[in-house]
């Protein structure tokens, strides 16, 4: 390893994050059980600090360090800022829920931060090795978080399922990586791309490796036919952890795909495009159709996630800068929309009661019209109805595939979003048209209410003035992906 080019400043967010985690770990030991809000506060402070560091050091152009193992570029920075914000929301929305279930312990916060560190590493990886390291750090932290309620059978079961299937996916990924290494003799993503473009690589070996890589990636993303873990894990985990799994990791997984398929293997685009078309079609179809049959909202949102990943892949498989930007925008909008959805479920849960079934939302408009409105915004945004932000996300990915001439795929996608609209509408129906069964008062702390409201209203505001956010996503992709 060559230490002369080591520029720690480029990796400052990760350094700060790691130091903060270690500090919080230590401090937490001296904080009594009933004052864990100090740990909570410190964790939030860390996220705010990280965001500041990220914004101040926003890179104008890609730069690498750690012997080209680590890359800092606008894409990574934009995604990291979105991940900090998402994690911030996850922690705030989940505080009451966690406290009522004895989950507000130091390890909850440190594990969350470790997961974030793993995602940061994934997003900034420019070598297959760093990518894999980041992914494993994220996964390990998530396995533990899912089972954080030791006595909860569904939680432990979900954790085991996620662990076994996740390990299998990691194996597939590693196997694929090893074949790429065998064909090109390097693990550095940029060098891999150059070697393939130079043309003296074993095409068969590369294509074979690509199949395993795509399988592994789809596994992590939760796309059909590698989606079986998603509903069980979403259902079994405590809702605050489900929200966590559905938020920032989706962004990290998306960048993971861009780094491998676009930055590393763009010469094989013809091959992965075909695979992703299939995966995308199946995800949209099975995700949407199965979601209709669900009565449990967490399961319904799990299948809806699967279908959203299908839409996201539409942007990737377009294999154009426009498509990647659209997919990035889709991912960001999706994450913040799902945060509202899960946030409302957390708000409606209380000690000894988890809001999980569709019928638990019945008559929410009568009980509290403000939360009903917030959920309405989230559902219509997910369904892609204007003027919600979700519309522009769907519009952008669909126009990306239409522009490369795949009009039938675009038509299929809009038909699937029609099916999707049905079950989102059903949630709105239950909230607005049905009579309330549960008349317990909804008691929510002011900070949760404020942040959740801001989050949901943002879905509408970014629908009416979507220009800025779209611009940021397009610029980030344009400045980061050097396309050959």
């Amino acid at each position, binding site marked *: 390893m060559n230490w002369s080019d080591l520029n720690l400043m480029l990796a400052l967010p990760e350094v700060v994050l790691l130091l903060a985690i270690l500090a919080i770990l230590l401090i937490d030991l001296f904080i009594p059980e009933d004052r864990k809000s100090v740990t909570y506060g410190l964790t939030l402070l860390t996220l705010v600090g990280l965001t500041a560091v990220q914004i101040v050091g926003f890179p104008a152009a890609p730069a690498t360090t750690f012997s080209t193992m680590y890359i800092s570029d606008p894409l990574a920075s934009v995604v990291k800022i979105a991940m900090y914000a998402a994690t911030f929301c996850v922690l705030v929305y989940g505080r009451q829920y966690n406290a009522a279930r004895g989950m507000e312990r130091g390890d909850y916060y440190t594990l969350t931060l470790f997961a974030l560190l793993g995602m940061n590493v994934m997003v900034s990886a420019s070598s297959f090795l760093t990518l894999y390291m980041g992914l494993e750090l994220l996964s390990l932290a998530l396995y533990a978080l899912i089972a954080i309620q030791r006595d909860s059978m569904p939680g432990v079961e979900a954790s085991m399922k996620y662990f076994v299937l996740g390990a299998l996916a990691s194996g597939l990924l590693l196997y694929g990586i090893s074949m790429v290494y065998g064909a090109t003799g390097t693990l550095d993503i940029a060098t891999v791309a150059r070697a393939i473009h130079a043309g003296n690589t074993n095409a068969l070996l590369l294509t074979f490796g690509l199949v395993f890589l795509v399988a592994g990636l789809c596994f992590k993303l939760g796309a059909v036919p590698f989606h079986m873990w998603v509903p069980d894990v979403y259902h079994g985990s405590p809702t605050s952890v489900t929200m966590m799994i559905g938020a920032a990791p989706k962004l990290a997984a998306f960048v993971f795909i861009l780094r491998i398929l676009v930055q590393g293997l763009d010469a094989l685009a013809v091959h992965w495009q075909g695979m992703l078309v299939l995966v995308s079609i199946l995800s949209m179809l099975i995700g949407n159709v199965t979601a209709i049959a669900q009565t449990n909202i967490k399961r319904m949102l799990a299948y809806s996630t699967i279908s959203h990943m299908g839409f996201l892949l539409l942007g990737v498989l377009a294999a154009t800068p426009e498509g990647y*930007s659209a997919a990035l925008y889709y991912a960001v909008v999706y994450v913040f929309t799902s945060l509202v959805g899960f946030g409302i479920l957390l708000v409606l849960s209380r000690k000894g009661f988890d809001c999980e079934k569709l019928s638990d939302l019945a008559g929410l*408009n009568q009980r509290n*019209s403000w939360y009903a409105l917030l959920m*309405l915004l989230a559902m*219509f945004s997910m369904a892609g*109805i*204007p*003027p919600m932000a979700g*519309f*522009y996300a769907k*519009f*952008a990915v*669909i*126009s990306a595939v*239409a*522009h490369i001439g795949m*009009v039938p795929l*675009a*038509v299929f996608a*809009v*038909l699937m*979003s*029609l099916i999707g*609209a*049905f079950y989102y*509408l*059903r949630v*709105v*129906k239950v909230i*607005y*048209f049905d009579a309330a069964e549960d008349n317990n008062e909804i008691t929510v702390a002011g900070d949760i209410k404020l942040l959740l409201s801001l989050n949901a209203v943002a879905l509408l505001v970014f629908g009416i003035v*979507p*220009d800025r956010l*779209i*611009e940021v996503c*397009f610029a980030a992709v344009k400045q980061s992906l050097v396309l050959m």
Partner: protein
Amino acid sequence: MGLTMFTNLLSLVIWAPIVAGLLVLATGGDQRAGLARWVALVGSVASFLLSLPLYTSFTDLHGGMQFEEMRPWIEALNINYHLGVDGISMLFVVLNSFTTVLVVLAGWQVIEKRVAQYMAAFLIMSGLINGAFAALDAILFYVFFEAMLIPMYLIIGVWGGPRRVYASIKFFLYTLLGSLLMLVAFIYLSRQTGSFEIASFHDARLAMNVQVMVFIAFFLSFAVKVPMWPVHTWLPDAHVEAPTGGSMVLAAITLKIGAYGFLRFALPIVPDACHYFAPAMVALSLVAVVYIGLVALVQTDMKKLVAYSSISHMGFVTLGMFMFSGTQLNAWAVEGALIQMVSHGFVSAAMFMCIGVMYDRVHSRNIADYGGVANKMPIFASFMMLFSMANAGLPATSGFVGEGMVVLGAVQVNFWYAFLAATTLIFGAAYTLWMYKRVLFGEVANSHVADMKDVNKREFLILAILALMVLGMGLYPQAFISKMHFSVNDLIAHVAQSKLVDH
């Protein structure tokens, strides 16, 4: 052009009701329902007054768009906030703002639960509809077009009748299906022309197979909205379950957006495909006019009857729009279709208002539950007589002008088209007047009818305004025709030119 004071007028007309709607929503729960009503009334009246200069300052000396506004909206996707109205869309913006005032009044005492939400939904929808009529960018149009589904969905589902949930979901999904395909067509067209400007779509040269595909997408989107036979089945369900105000807006305005879509999108963008499909469109329209007219005859539910009569009347509109002689559209028929749209806006709103007035007293929409109402409500009976005559297309009412012009235009194209279309004058009179006879005339049928009180001041005001419009339009249609004349001529000239790619 000396209209600088009106540079943002269209934006105002779109956003004023939306802001008013948010204000109404902010008044909170039903303990402040009175405040919500007044804020809604002030908001809707102000929006209507704002829309009036659109009519009065609209110059009918030349065609083209007026009151244009243009600024970039989403530059990365090449989408603009581009507004403007021609002689066709201007009328509907004003009509919509006008109807909203009546809707607020119509729900004044009748709506008792969640008043603020009810009023807010109508005001917001009014702004969105104005946006759809005024948009000159295809995506901007789509955003307004789709967004109005949300308030309508809630209006039917929350304040509707017993089968409201089924009706609201059916309404939403039916209309969403069509518009999603239209979105793909827009994306495709923007690929061909490099922008989402509707005007640039108008100039695109497209091969016949492409035109056919684009036409089908437009057809599915707009035919569902109009609604044309056989995709009309959502309308009776939605109407029957919707509250009175919802039915008024549905019939008076939202159906018109479908017909407007044919004029603004299908005809000018894919004229050759329209010409190709014209016989089919005429056939579907005639089926709507004749067959749906007969269906209306056998209805036992008053609201369903008027809903079917709406479909039948809208059949006239689509018939008039697809009257080709050669590649030339017939000017009489197109103008007649437009007049019919405006007239139907008044007449159907009035009919639903009348049914609402009776429903509020007896809580039944069944014809069989009434009889002899005229004995108890003479003032109401005179109003309803006028509106029934207008619905049947009696001369001197607005209903006659449009239907007469379409039939006259149709005679020039094909006698049998005109003959079949003219049967509506018989069927329309039959179902409307027969209903009128069974409900209003005869002996007082039961104790509920005996308890009915004549219209109060609020109801009188609404009905009187509508009666004025129906008569005014029937006696002096020139006030409307003169505004739209140039725009219709432009349209006909544009459609007459083939847009097939030269080989």
